[in-house]
């Protein structure tokens, strides 16, 4: 340690706070000017924390399991009744689905239908709800032989959760569809109309910019659209519900409050890269993927079923 005289040391101590406050402003400027650097540092920290949270996850899940078990016992009867009703409804749907599947196979055979390539995916556990007070995102753990790239699409067992916006070697950050910076081009299943789904940082994203004439209907299902090449068409997002202010909200299909395991699909899309993205992937003009899909997603009701997974005819 360097020996300094007492007045010098006192002067240094007095100076350190203002200097550090100036440094904080400088940091804000740097963060604004070089978003990539900020992202890299953040990812490095996430890579360090992800294994720690990964090891903590199991005992924590057990703990939470016990807590929910205790709560579940209380409303066992009500839940049973509800499940019975739901099961009956599902049986009816199963019959309908089987009939439709048979019909679909028949049609496909008649048309010599070329099935779309199945997209590659990795399954990853959610290790932390990393979102801060003004952001909605989750951190997923990645074990080294696998790897996740920016722009991959995250789905849980029911629907779209979000997109990978930052990818490190041991973790990746998924920006949820409810985040304020999330904008997703969507198709309304009933009318085939287009719109944009905007996150609000609240529980429900809202719909915006639908064309005149195709007003989102209450209870209508919302799917991703291939417009701009950021998402493949036809992934389930949620259902439309109007709130008290007559704003169409989307109730997400995915269970965003209890995310445990995500599937990260690599559709190898080359359109709009994920938010705050640096020039990572080579950007190709999207028409090759977007154009053939556009008519498919705008066909009225009967065609909508077959447009469920066109991941690009390549």
């Amino acid at each position: 340690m360097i020996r300094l005289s007492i007045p010098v040391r006192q002067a240094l101590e007095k100076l350190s706070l203002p200097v550090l406050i100036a440094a904080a402003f400088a940091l804000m400027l740097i963060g604004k000017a070089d978003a990539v650097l900020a992202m890299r540092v953040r990812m490095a920290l996430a890579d360090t924390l992800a294994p720690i949270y990964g090891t903590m996850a199991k005992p924590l899940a057990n703990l939470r399991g016990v807590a929910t078990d205790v709560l579940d016992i209380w409303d066992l009867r009500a839940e049973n009744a509800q499940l019975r009703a739901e099961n009956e409804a599902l049986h009816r749907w199963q019959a309908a689905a089987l009939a439709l599947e048979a019909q679909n196979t028949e049609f496909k055979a008649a048309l010599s239908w070329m099935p779309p390539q199945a997209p590659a995916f990795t399954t990853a556990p959610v290790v932390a709800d990393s979102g801060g007070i003004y952001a909605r995102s989750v951190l997923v753990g990645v074990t080294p032989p696998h790897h996740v790239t920016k722009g991959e699409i995250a789905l849980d067992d029911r629907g779209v959760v979000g997109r990978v916006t930052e990818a490190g070697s041991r973790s990746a950050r998924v920006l949820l569809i409810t985040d304020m910076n999330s904008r997703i081009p969507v198709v309304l299943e009933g009318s085939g109309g287009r719109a944009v789904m905007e996150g609000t940082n609240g529980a429900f994203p809202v719909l915006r910019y639908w064309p005149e004439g195709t007003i989102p209907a209450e209870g209508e299902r919302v799917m991703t659209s291939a417009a701009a090449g950021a998402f493949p068409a036809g992934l389930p997002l949620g259902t439309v519900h109007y709130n008290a202010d007559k704003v169409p909200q989307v109730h997400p299909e995915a269970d965003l409050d209890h995310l445990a395991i995500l599937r990260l699909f690599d559709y190898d899309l080359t359109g709009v890269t994920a938010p705050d993205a640096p020039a990572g992937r080579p950007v190709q003009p999207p028409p090759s993927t977007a154009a053939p899909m556009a008519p498919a997603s705008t066909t009225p009701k009967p065609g909508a079923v077959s447009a469920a997974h066109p991941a690009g005819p390549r």
Partner: protein
Amino acid sequence: MEKTPGIRPRRSFGQRLDRTARRGFPGAITIFAMVIAGAPFGLPGQAQLLPAITLASVFFWSLFRPVAFPPPFVFVLGLLADLMEEMPPGVSVLILLLTQMLVLRIRRPLGKQSFLFVWLIFTIVAAVATALQWALCSLLDWTFFPPASGLFVFLLATGLYPLIAIVFIQAHRSLAAPEQT
């Protein structure tokens, strides 16, 4: 720490280690609490926990044991908070440093006051800090964030302060006190 002048025998390695551990305790416990606050508990409003803990911790230790929280350490703490909360880097750093600067100014009169009065002062500090945080985040991201999340941070920080303070006061008197060696 040596208040009385005089020559005393050189401290043994064990004593020096003990002193270092006591000095480092407030910082270490704060970082530990921050990491734990980010763990997947699945609690509602967990995102707001981290800024609340950081603010309360910086306020408490700057007031009662500033030696344990030198400004460079607060800087690092703020940076960690920014990175963990996905805020624009520098926002928490600035807020925590400003909090510390203010607390160091009013330290002498405030240290003699009752716990309730200190809590009241913390409430005011937390209100200003969360408002500033919200304003800076909105400005740097150029988006109007709903102020409700900021308000929740304020309420959580205010509510949690007595709990955190009880733990810290115990530590301040026993674990983190270098005089005890």
